[in-house]
């Protein structure tokens, strides 16, 4: 398991830091000299989960590689809000090319570094769910099957938020987007569509696949650190709530991420070479409506028992499939 929860030292490893823990058990984010790879002044919305998730992940990767890191970025919010010409909020070598080719660009960088003999410099590709699961999917799958030495991080906010909240193949059933309006007999996004990219990544038999969340920092950092200790194609999908696209309070971003985990709707796990090696257990199980009710994109679902029970069924299936209950406590 990537991260073993430490309990009882007042807040254990549930908080970002903890003065009572050994230095080894504290997060990168708790240190005064974290790299702040994604710095202040970026133009993400208030309470942006993606900005938070990107700093968490890249800072952890920077620490793991001793700052020898290059990142290729897909088009999307993360690219737009960090680099309006001529400013950049990135404090790492960073390149943006197209919407759909981040994985291919990163593969090229990794190949170049190999030719140059720069073994210590590591490569990350990153993007939102649109650039990953839809538009960049061909390049991503190619990177996986060639087992290129790249960690691909997908910040999953379940839609095309940058262009005005359209549905992506990561948008959950029932959710309202600009292209899946809550009208007609099946309001919101369809339930029987979409891709489970972590599972698809696992099907490529790559060395490492993990899902993570902005509310489980220790877990997220441990996963990034572990990924950076390995070579070959690796994939981490980070759950990042989007206040704008989801119609949620900016202050609730981390809380929503937590409720998604605690309801079982977004299972956190690690897999190596296609096999699941660990799951993050639910701490205090909640029903999905606890998670849904804070989001306007699900407002119609709250009044629709059929859709509500369909979403609850998804969560229950996850709990069953991944064994999310019991264990740690």
């Amino acid at each position, binding site marked *: 398991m990537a991260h073993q929860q430490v309990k*009882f030292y007042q807040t254990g490893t549930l*908080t970002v*830091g903890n003065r009572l823990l050994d230095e080894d058990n504290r997060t990168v*984010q708790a240190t005064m000299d974290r790299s702040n790879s994604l710095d*202040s002044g970026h*133009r993400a919305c208030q*309470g942006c989960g993606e900005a938070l998730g990107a700093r968490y992940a890249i800072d952890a990767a920077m620490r793991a590689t001793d700052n020898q890191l290059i990142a290729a970025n897909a088009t999307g919010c993360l690219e737009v809000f960090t680099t309006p010409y001529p400013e*950049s909020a990135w404090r790492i070598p960073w390149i943006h090319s197209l919407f759909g080719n981040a994985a291919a660009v990163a593969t090229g960088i990794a190949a170049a570094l190999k030719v140059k003999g720069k073994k210590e410099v590591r490569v990350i590709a990153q993007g939102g769910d649109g650039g990953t699961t839809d538009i960049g999917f061909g390049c991503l799958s190619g990177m996986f099957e060639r087992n290129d030495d790249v960690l691909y991080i997908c910040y999953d906010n379940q839609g095309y938020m940058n262009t005005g909240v359209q549905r992506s193949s990561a948008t959950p059933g029932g959710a309202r987007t600009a292209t899946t309006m809550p009208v007609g007999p099946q309001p919101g996004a369809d339930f029987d569509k979409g891709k489970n990219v972590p599972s698809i990544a696992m099907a490529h038999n790559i060395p490492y696949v993990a899902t993570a969340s902005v509310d489980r920092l220790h877990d997220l950092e441990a996963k990034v650190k572990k990924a950076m200790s390995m070579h070959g194609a690796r994939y981490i999908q980070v759950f990042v709530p989007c206040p704008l696209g989801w119609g949620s309070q900016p*202050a609730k971003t*981390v809380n929503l991420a937590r409720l998604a985990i605690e309801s079982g709707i977004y299972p956190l796990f690690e897999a190596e070479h296609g096999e699941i090696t660990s799951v993050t257990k639910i701490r205090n199980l909640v029903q999905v409506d606890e998670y849904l009710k804070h989001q306007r994109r699900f407002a119609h679902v709250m009044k629709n028992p059929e859709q509500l029970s369909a979403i609850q069924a998804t969560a229950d299936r996850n709990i069953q499939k991944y064994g999310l209950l019991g264990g740690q406590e």
Partner: protein
Amino acid sequence: MKNTKPYAITLDVGGSLLNKTGSWRTDRPVYLDRLPPCNSTCPAGENIQQWLYHAESGEYKKAWLEIMKNNPFPAVMGRVCYHSCESACNRTQLDEPVGINSVERFLGDQAINNQWKVKPGKSSGKKVMIVGAGMAGLSCAYHLRLAGHDVTIFESSPKPGGMVRYGIPKYRMPREKLNAEIHRIEEMGVKIELNTKVFNIAATKEKYGFDAAFLSIGAQNGQYIEIKSDQSLPSLVGVDVLQGIEEDKPSDLHGQVIVYGGGNTAIDVARSAIRMGTQGVKVVVRNSRDKMPAHLDEINEAVQEGVEIVALRSIVEISDGHLVLEKMVTVEGGKSQPTGEFETIPASVVVQALGQNVDPGLFADVDQLELDDGVLDVDFHMMSGIEGVFAGGDMVPSDRNVTIAIGHGKKAARSIDQWLKGEFQQMDEKHEVVDISMMNTWYYSDAPRTIRPILDVVRRQSGFAEVVGDLDEDSAAFEARRCMSCGNCFECDNCYGVCPDNAVIKLGNGKRFEFKYDYCKGCGMCVEECPCGAIKMEPEEI
């Protein structure tokens, strides 16, 4: 200068720090300290959250010194305090309250074992007299010495300690701990004149040239009601019985002991009687059992030890070695009324423990001081009708317990200090009390199973019966770590971590955090994710 750069790089590359996103904000987060409920209810005004904070990291001396800022008796309080802090503890709403009392006892004992000391303040040249070496008087003396004043206490009894010594049995309050904490105060230069009863305050004050006086003579005269009796049974008074036990005088407690009254003194007498090998102890109370003023823990412990509570009975007659009891009923408003039904029970001795009064002797020769309804009125600063004469403890209008007395002593000492310097200061405004709804309790992890059972036993019994061992060091630290630090930053780094805009600066160990308002967009995530409720949003002035 002519721009020679090609298209698309006509501007110099700049960092995002040029973009002051703080201008987006309509509300700003601010750090604040809220008042934790434990601190808010502590009659001695201890900063419990703060001393637990030090104890959490094993800094026991620091923790002890924090207690000593307000209360010079941690080892005594860790045993006999009724810990209203624990009743108020927000953790109760998650699992069980933090065992504050047991940690305080641990710290107090550590101090005694390691002979930790507190230094008196720089001499002020002022002299203060104190009448009564009970908790209020000793607490006042301690705080006056901290402020550098010269202090003499006049005590009518042969030993200092007041009701803690003469009213609380040894099984609850071991005398070596009490003596050690009083001795520490004496070592700070407080003079205690024992066996010295003061009859005239004004004369004594003038004779020795005292600049101010503090009266804390307590309420030691046991109330005694006349019960129709054929003198077939000895009839005793509760406080006198307890004092006799303390002084090792032969006791009249034997056979079937009947204690009349439902307060703590009654329970103390009953539990002492159990320990003295009597044949049976009954506590007769006029009210229903749930209306007994004694502390519930003590009633339960007494019952466990074999004391029988006879509720809703009044003693109407002593006759032929028996008591005639009249049955009572609870009527609307919670009061009890006689029913006219009687019963008799056998008895060997009756002890009345129906409350205590202030000895009016001290005021006989002073016109300006008069007892009103049995107590001496004082103003907000604890000053009596005479300028420069202050009073506190059981003799002033207030609930009566040791912790309150210690608080009175502290408050009076601060007032006396200010009065000696010429004028009373305004009290600092108290912070808002933190409610659990202002906190994010998700973060507080549960105690592991291995620790909990040990602590449960200690929590139930500590500060209660010395047959229970002390909290060991590990358990003390673990118990302290159950504190949620309500309303006060404990540097968990959550705000520093969860800010998507990197707009929180970590200032380093013990220095907390600052907001970078140039970049804070005002999303409020730091407030939402602060476990202890030490940040709030305030509307921005536009």
